[in-house]
């Protein structure tokens, strides 16, 4: 029996050796950025523009500024198809490339779990802007995780804030339902919402939808029966259009729907068009807005025919988010270079320092062409999320319209949760927390 294992070992030794050669081709002044993506499978419609955005921005930086202080950005995509095991394989394949992987945006909750566990050992950064483990905000425990700009907890909190505003400041006796993708991703906001419900006196009812969620009739029949005042919609992939359709079919007003950002991209509602009119989505960035970065992208990349996706994709919500994520990655590298030497390729540890000392002021963002797109963010050793800003956009049947001003989550709900869950994680994995 062992013989076959041997075959495997050898075959793989060869494979990895050859695979290794492409590593060898990396020259000195290059910084490697691994790109975990899913352009196929269940979540491809979201994954494609996201991946395009991530890659486009790196191309832009190379084309426009010749990299970061002269250090060219190299990158390689690896298809995960949103599958944890595949994701781990990609991570293992890319983590050592060049001077070391600058940071993994896994694009998946499941992969984040698996990779987080290894990142502690391998000492590479896992950046999860707007997803991942909400408690990983706590830098004292999660040295290598960076849920920048926001987590599902901040998102849920902001939704509640916006609803409260609509309800003239009080949710007493209101009914709010959470219709969620029955997976860790979908369940993430529950503890925060329960805390909120207790504090604000609204009644929270939970409606899990078994993935993939192509069939949600029973869920929406229940919604129709219980008539909640608002529905928070934590969906993904096909579950989103399916849900909106059922909402329409059961006559639930779309204006009362609040979707998480992964269910608030153009492709989610485009084809439903008028049917989704009034559908609200929270966004981590000012998705509706265009800014200099978009023009630059056209000028330096797409007009040269080097665009990753179709030019029409530029400015779409997911694409912009992709670019923003790459921008954060690049700025982390820049910050790290300021400390460890301009124009030098950096080790993952050094990049980590950059992530931990991000300070994107309004002017800086403006200079980068993101001034209109997002708000300033500043991370620290203890706070790996930085400042979370989010706002509500609404689908008017043809495009997204910004409906609210910027919100910031209410720390008095978030922070204790973060502490509690981070402590639990540290205990489970017996990680000794760093002092900050």
């Amino acid at each position: 029996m062992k013989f076959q294992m041997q075959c495997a070992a050898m075959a793989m030794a060869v494979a990895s050796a050859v695979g290794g050669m492409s590593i060898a081709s990396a020259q000195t002044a290059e910084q490697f950025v691994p790109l975990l993506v899913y352009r196929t499978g269940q979540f491809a419609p979201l994954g494609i523009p996201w991946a395009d955005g991530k890659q486009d921005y790196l191309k832009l930086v190379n084309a426009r500024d010749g990299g970061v202080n002269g250090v060219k950005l190299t990158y390689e995509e690896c298809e995960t198809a949103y599958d944890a095991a595949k994701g781990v394989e990609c991570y293992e394949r890319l983590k050592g490339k060049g001077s070391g992987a600058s940071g993994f945006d896994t694009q998946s909750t499941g992969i984040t779990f698996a990779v987080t566990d290894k990142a502690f050992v391998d000492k590479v950064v896992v950046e999860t802007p707007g997803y991942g483990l909400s408690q990983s905000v706590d830098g004292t425990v999660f040295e290598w995780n960076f849920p920048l700009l926001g987590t599902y907890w901040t998102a849920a909190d902001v939704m509640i804030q916006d609803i409260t505003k609509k309800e003239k400041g009080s949710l007493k006796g209101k009914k709010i339902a959470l219709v969620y993708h029955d997976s860790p991703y979908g369940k993430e906001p529950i503890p925060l919402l329960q805390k909120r419900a207790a504090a604000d006196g609204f009644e929270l009812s939970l409606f899990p939808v078994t993935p993939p969620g192509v069939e949600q009739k029973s869920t929406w029949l229940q919604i129709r029966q219980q008539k909640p005042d608002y529905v928070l919609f934590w969906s993904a992939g096909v579950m989103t259009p399916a849900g909106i359709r059922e909402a329409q079919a059961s006559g639930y007003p779309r204006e009362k729907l609040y979707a998480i950002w992964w269910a608030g991209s153009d492709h989610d509602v485009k084809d439903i068009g008028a049917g989704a009119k009034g559908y609200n989505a929270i966004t981590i960035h000012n998705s509706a807005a265009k800014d200099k970065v978009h023009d630059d992208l056209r000028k330096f990349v797409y007009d040269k025919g080097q665009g990753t996706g179709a030019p029409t994709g530029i400015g779409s919500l997911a694409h912009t988010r992709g670019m923003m994520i790459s921008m954060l990655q690049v700025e982390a590298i820049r910050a790290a270079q300021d400390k460890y030497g301009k124009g030098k390729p950096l080790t993952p540890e050094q990049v980590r320092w950059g992530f931990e000392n991000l300070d994107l002021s309004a002017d800086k963002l403006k200079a980068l062409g993101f001034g209109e797109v997002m708000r300033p963010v500043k991370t620290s050793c203890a706070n790996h999320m930085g400042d979370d800003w989010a706002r509500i956009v609404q689908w008017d049947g043809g495009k997204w319209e910004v409906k609210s001003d910027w919100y910031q989550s209410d720390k008095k709900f978030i922070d204790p949760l973060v502490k509690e869950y981070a402590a639990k994680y540290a205990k489970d994995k017996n990680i000794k927390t760093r002092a900050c």
Partner: protein
Amino acid sequence: MGFFLETVFGGLMAGMLYALVALGFVLIFKASGVFNFAQGAMVLFAALAMARFSEWIPRWLGFDSLLLANLLAFVAAGACMVAVAWLVERLALRHLVNQEGITLLMATLGIAHVLDGAGQLLFGSATYKIDVGMPKDPFIVLENTFEGGLLLSKEDLYAAVAAGALVALLTLFFQKTRTGRALRAVADDHQAAQSIGIPLGRIWVIVWSVGGLVALVAGVIWGSKLGVQFSISLVALKAFPVVILGGLTSVPGAILGGLIIGVGEKLSEIYLGPFLGGGIENWFAYALALAVLLIRPQGLFGDKIIDRV
């Protein structure tokens, strides 16, 4: 009461669609003894073809009539499915005659991989639109019987009607036409059918084509509802319990099974779900099927097996 009826009705509607997918399984299993795991992939492939052709054809031929576009697209997609059927028979089935059922099942899983890859490669993996002008908004009936009345979705209604029509059509096809009779002959006994000169190969191509067309209709219905994307290949998982509940070899079984599962899962989710924390309809459908099998191991309408030694 009103709500209960709504639930049942919703279940029936959903069940009709499951039945449609299940039908594909049954047809193919009857005639070629293959449990076709690729059915879902076929639904996806067909839907992608339909969606993309209806988008491309007008551009190629330079006209803009939605109806015409859809008609042509449907024909084109149908042709694709026939081609797929032909290839499947040529490249796989033909070489796998009288293999174990499990081997054939695995082969269809391989085929499913190929179809998934090919479909997304040819037609793309983003979300695409099928617009056959299905009305989306609900309407209310029996307002004076129940307060609030019964809220029904036109889309579901049309979908169910379409599904029903297709089933009727197929039944006619099997009962009346020569090919239909030949198909049934094959289903009953391969050797015998061959010996009276029915060409198995051709029959398989036909039956897989029919399976493909069923997939196409299912694809159009689901696609126009959810938009066409990879995930609609997963509706197949909804059809499995239906198939075994009704009996692998029974067309009426597929229909009735579909309705039973549809209603069963909705009722379970709504009236049982809350006590179990919800999200139970998926496995409940299988549990239901399993329960029935324990009483009738060959499904409601399947053929009975007697040991002979």
